[in-house]
């Protein structure tokens, strides 16, 4: 820590100047190895065939804004939390609601499924009162009062904005409005490690899918995205190129890069080995901030939900927009691709969740063509009867 004591005669001005010079030098160093841009390298990749992604399931049941959702490992269930104080576990395939847990607080900002058992994590982030993180074991008995089995695990001095289980059900990572992230032991509720370095609220975090499984990235209102070592609590890398709050960070499936979605209406792609930003996903017609993002299974597509109620789908390699999804009637708070990559779930302030998927395989065209033939046929019949 920098408690060395300031040298005599070191003024604020000289420190600021040194800070600026070093920042410039860092930029230069990063640019030295920048011999090619991503879209240049991606020129030899095939252009994406026209994507046809449609929303076909709408999950209604929440009474207020849905703030967060997460998929279960079984690829069909999802958990969602809402401002009406309820957390609902859905079977998105059959549209059944399986569990509903009422909570005493309204701003349930995040929820996540645990990897092994169906331990569902809920977060209570109420201003100044209930900044706790709780874990609930989901049992088979649907009549059991789940709220009573709630176990409080984490505690911050400000609202808890994001949470994630690590590779097991036993440890929990949380990010908070108090500017820190923390690692907790679920069983004892003990704080294992805390991560200081952000100078403003931390809004989101994501665990690295790497071999060693020891790092995670966090993004916050100080426009910085930091990569941390879970074991030592150190800030390994820092990226500062966004122009506004970073709302969401997500790792690329290989773990060598991550994407961030921000209020400045752009999503950016950062490479960890090259230590710099390699792509910016933006368009003049996109004015509103992006609040969430997620990669498709192969990492070729980036789904980003925006505050203008749309979901834009970006081609990660070429930097262009592949398609845009409409349908939500208020801002999109969360998008998540299902664990096996078959569908995209999105939660919105319009109190619904939607599940969308792609109809882009060859045989689908034949199917749609036949459907079209039937439709044309029926219309012709109608025209004839009207004429006569």
């Amino acid at each position, binding site marked *: 820590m920098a408690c060395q004591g300031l040298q005599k005669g070191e003024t604020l001005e000289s420190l600021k100047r040194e800070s600026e010079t*070093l920042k410039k030098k860092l930029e230069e160093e990063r640019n030295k190895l920048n011999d090619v841009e991503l879209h240049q390298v991606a020129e030899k990749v095939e252009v994406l065939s026209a994507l046809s992604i449609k929303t076909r399931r709408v999950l209604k049941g929440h009474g207020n804004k849905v703030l967060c959702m997460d998929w279960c490992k079984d690829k069909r269930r999802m958990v969602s939390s809402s401002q009406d104080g309820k957390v609902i576990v859905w079977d998105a395939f059959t549209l059944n609601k399986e569990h509903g847990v009422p909570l005493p607080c309204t701003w349930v900002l995040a929820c996540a499924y645990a990897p092994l058992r169906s331990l569902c994590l809920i977060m209570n982030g109420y201003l100044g009162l209930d900044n706790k993180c709780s874990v609930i074991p989901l049992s088979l008995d649907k009549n059991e009062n789940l709220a009573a089995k709630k176990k409080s695990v984490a505690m911050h001095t400000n609202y808890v904005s994001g949470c994630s289980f690590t590779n*097991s059900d036993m440890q929990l990572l949380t990010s908070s409005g108090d500017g820190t992230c923390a690692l907790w032991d679920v069983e004892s509720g003990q704080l294992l490690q805390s991560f200081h370095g952000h100078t403003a609220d931390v809004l989101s975090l994501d665990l690295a899918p790497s071999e060693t499984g020891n790092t995670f990235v966090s993004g916050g209102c100080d426009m910085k995205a930091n990569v941390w070592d879970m074991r030592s609590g150190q800030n390994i890398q820092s990226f500062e190129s966004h122009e506004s709050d970073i709302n969401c960070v997500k790792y690329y499936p290989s773990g060598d890069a991550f994407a961030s979605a921000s209020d400045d209406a752009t999503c950016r792609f950062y490479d960890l080995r090259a230590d710099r930003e390699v792509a910016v996903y933006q368009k003049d017609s996109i004015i509103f901030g992006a609040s969430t993002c997620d990669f498709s299974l192969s990492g070729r597509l980036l789904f980003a939900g925006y505050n203008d109620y749309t979901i834009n789908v970006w081609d990660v390699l070429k930097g262009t927009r592949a398609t845009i999804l409409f349908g939500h009637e208020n801002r999109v708070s969360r998008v998540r691709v299902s664990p096996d990559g078959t569908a995209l779930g999105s939660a919105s302030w319009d109190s619904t969740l939607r599940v969308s998927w792609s109809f882009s395989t060859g045989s689908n065209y034949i199917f749609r063509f036949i459907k079209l033939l039937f439709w044309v046929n029926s219309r012709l019949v109608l025209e004839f009867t009207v004429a006569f």
Partner: protein
Amino acid sequence: MTINTLAKGGCHREQMACFRKMEKVIVAMQDPDMGMKMRNQRLLITVIPHAMTGHDIITWLTHKYRISEEEALHLGNMLVKYGYIYPLKEPRCLVLRPDESPYRFQTPYFWTSTRWPASELDYGKKKLKIYMYSLLHKRINHTWDFVVMQAREQLRSSKQRRKADRIVLECQEQAYWLINRPPVRSITLYCIQLYCVVHIEACRKALGRNRVKSSICLEGFLKYSEQYLNHDPIMQGCLPSNPWISDDTAHWTMNAEIVPVPTRLRVERWSFSFTELLNDAMGRKEFMTYLEKEFSAENLYFWQACEDIRHGENSKIVEKVEDVYKNFLAPGAARWVNIDSKTMDKTLEGIKRPHRFVMDDAQMHIYFLMKKDSYPRYLKSDLYKNMLAKAIVPQETKKSVFPFMRRQRHSSPSPAQTATQAAEEEGLAKGAGTRSLYSVV
């Protein structure tokens, strides 16, 4: 965007950026050369100058931003919703109609952004407070415990005093602080200086990093995307069919955790990287069978035991570390693993004071050993090749021509139930023989 401001319902810095962008669009629309053509619109008997139709707006947006009509309609709707364009016919209905309905631009005086100057200043002040708080926290972090302890003591002793005495003490304390409070200005200055010093250190550390050339890193992404293209249902579809489209859960049943015969795509994926193999329960089982043949299965058992320590409950760490030592590291142990002497010494030192990460170095060593040696040989082995040949390639289900013939969607057993069943089965299987070290919690 934070919930602190969301809850207060205030106009926020994020919104300001949006409004500025929307204003840019509006200004571009009113550009005399490239902007929209406005004309006099007839509204009942009056003629309104400088108006435009909804259709014109959409056409202009479509051309200017090269977007689809649907998107232009959506964007135009936003402009109307936030008051930059207002409808003349139905003033209360803030919707953009793509027809001949007349619209006009709102005067800048009424723009949303000009009506909220105060919140920027407030937000700036709040940010400074947050900087200072976190720096103060860092500064007194090491003395925090001491402070808390002192406070507790004070509270305890003060409760025992009489009320009158308490009041006197309070006044005395207040007077002391009034005279001896640290000058406010120097705290702020100190905090900012501290922030600069911290920033400088971070920059220096970052300068010393090893970086990789961009061309190499970016090629990596291309290769990854290409490799996984066939495994990405959103890009290429999946066999036999996407359950969400066809309402048929065959795809999920075929790709369940443990199946008698895995699919070809799944077995191919094991060859992409060692992590893929280890992350798949079936892959791990196959690899274990292979290692048993090679008489190096203790490596995988050791790795699994270390993972269990790293991710398991805090209370069981000491017990698990002892088990691992007895079974893998002690001289003459049943499943002795071959680690280099330096790592072994370090690990044995660490075991005296066991903690969650004490096995990390040894685990890393064994992991890379398996990755560089056993894994490539496994991929070339008959065991793997037979698995690949046996693996099924599901037939693509023919879609029914009649779209209204929908299949029944059945619910699946709850994941909690399947997890308990799996745990029981594994427990039974490992009951006989050597003591199980990797137990499903």
